């Protein structure tokens, strides 16, 4: 007798959580090897999540908005990656194209949705929530509601530390790490990166220095979107690809951003990796939901006691 709009609230908890570890990969190994494998898996996911969370963090730090649609940008990355890889037969083409789409999409969304409501801090949460509804529903309408899987572009396993480990996962981790390094080099070494840091630090002074603050903000949003979508393509072969994946990823990214310190980029990366490894380890002796509750509890304590993040200086 209940009507249809509760389709909105399906059973997220019971589905496969993309961040959680695939137990099956390791069945048959000794316990300590299993724990080790879960930690490595956490590290792999942590590095990918770090890319996405970094996007969330620069958007927050520079535009002062909480982007609730950020998880859906990640989801768009996985879907875009799968669609391009399947239709062209080349995953590598997808890897190159999807972040470019991300830049374009981010720039358009910034112009149409974000910029008109900038400055009304809490209302941007509402507009991005609306955006999130639109993105999920558009994907469901076009790509479909059925979860799919993408075969990794590199198959096979390598033998490390007594474990047979999926090569693609290792490559994904290395690639994500390389992207993180490239991003920080971009911030510190290029003119645009310097501008972004200047606007983050003090928009008014930046304006007087002749930095085009509006354009820099727009580019930052686009860059954040591209980072989330890049994370999506990299993750596509190791997760299920469907319109709701973003809903699971978003809380995790927020945890990384909060625990790392809102707007503290290095802290975000460190927290993402730390949390993913911790969740990996905690879920090796209890169920994944419990691991999630533990990290959410940890996050609330950080929010209340050290609102500037775990790694902030000893202020307050």
């Amino acid at each position, binding site marked *: 007798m209940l009507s249809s709009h509760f389709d*909105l609230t399906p059973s997220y908890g019971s589905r496969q959580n993309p961040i959680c570890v695939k137990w099956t990969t390791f069945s048959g190994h000794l316990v300590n090897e299993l724990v080790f494998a879960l930690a490595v898996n956490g590290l792999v996911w942590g590095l990918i999540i770090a890319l996405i969370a970094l996007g969330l963090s620069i958007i927050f730090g520079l535009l002062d908005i909480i982007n609730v649609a950020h998880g859906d940008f990640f989801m768009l990355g996985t879907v875009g990656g799968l669609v391009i890889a399947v239709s062209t037969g080349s995953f590598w083409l997808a890897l190159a194209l999807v972040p470019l789409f991300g830049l374009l999409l981010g720039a358009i969304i910034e112009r149409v949705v974000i910029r008109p*409501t900038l400055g009304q801090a809490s209302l941007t*949460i509402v507009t991005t*929530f609306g955006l999130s509804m639109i993105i999920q*529903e558009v994907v469901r309408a076009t790509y479909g509601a059925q979860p799919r899987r993408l075969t990794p572009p590199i198959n096979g396993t390598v033998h490390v530390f007594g474990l047979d480990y999926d090569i693609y996962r290792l490559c994904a981790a290395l690639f994500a790490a390389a992207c993180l390094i490239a991003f920080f080099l971009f911030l510190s070494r290029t003119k645009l990166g310097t501008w972004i840091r200047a606007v983050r630090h003090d928009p008014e002074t930046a304006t007087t220095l002749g930095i085009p603050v509006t354009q820099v903000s727009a580019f930052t949003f686009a860059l954040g979107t591209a980072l989330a979508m890049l994370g999506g393509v990299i993750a596509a072969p190791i997760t299920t690809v469907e319109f709701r994946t973003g809903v699971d990823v978003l809380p995790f990214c927020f945890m990384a951003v909060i625990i790392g310190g809102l707007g503290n980029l290095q802290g975000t990366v460190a927290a993402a990796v730390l949390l993913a490894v911790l969740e990996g380890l905690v879920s090796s002796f209890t169920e994944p939901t419990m691991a*999630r509750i533990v990290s959410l509890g940890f*996050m609330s304590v950080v*929010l209340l006691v050290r609102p500037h993040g775990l790694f902030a200086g000893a202020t307050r």
Partner: protein
Amino acid sequence: MTTSGLRILFSVVLLLVLVAVPYVLPALGATFWVNIVSEILIWSLLAASVNLLLGYVGLLSFGQALYFGFGMYGVVLSINTWGVGFWPALAIGVIAASAMAFVTGIFAVRLTWHYFAIITVVFSLIFYFAAMSTKWLTGGDDGLSFTPPPVLSIGSFRLSLADAEVQYYTILVIVMACFALKYLLVNSALGLRFMAVRENDRRAALIGINVYFTRLAAFVLAGALAGVSGALFAFFGRYASASYMFYHVSGEAVVWAIVGGTGSLLGPLAGTGALIVFRELVSTAWEHYLIAVGAITILVVMFMPRGLAGGWDALIQRAATGKAGTSETAGVAEKA
């Protein structure tokens, strides 16, 4: 006619329309819509709880579904475990929600703005995951069902929710009572304190207002409203499910509240009504109507920051004075 006269007239007409629903709609061959109106009434209380926090104390909560869920489970568990009657179960649901709001509020209202929005989501997620994994207690995703006790039972005289009219009027009376209490609240001394905190928390403290307790009081009262909403929804749906504690339910309530107009008494009813009617009309023809809901949300935030109630208010003002709205009502709580 004066502005307040028009507002009273409008409120009376609205009430009469709502009272007439179970007679008029079936006569028009739309019996199904009686339930839709019930649903609108119930959910409007959840939107009202967001509205109370955002519109009157200036706190955006993205976690009201938690207290909705506690209202639901308070009802279902107390009936299934102790076999209590309708009113005690309702009271237990509301008390459970308020108590939870008090406990989480102690921490949450230390924060404001983004931080407040985030911590309310985090708290609701923690309990969502907890409810999902304690299947023995909550039934998890599948939920728990129950048989609702009679609303009233005196001798052989019984009012049962199985009777569609009894169910509708029970819901209508409780929801209207909540809106009446909220009207008293926002026009009371405490309501003025809420608005002082919303407008300027530093000055509020400097005239002697305990800002923390004022926010906490608002948070508990909002939790109670969400609790009534959840309790009624449990009676209406004859079940409770952990999936209603997810943050998308909170998000929907925020959308209803914003579209209806924050800081206005009947805004939540307007927003919830408009969007649920929209859903019912459009979703049968277009499966992906949520695209339109998302777009409406964004457009309202951009172009109608005071929502439907704000637009309606300007109309009433124009009708009463023959000119566009003045500053008289902005920010004042007596909008009906």
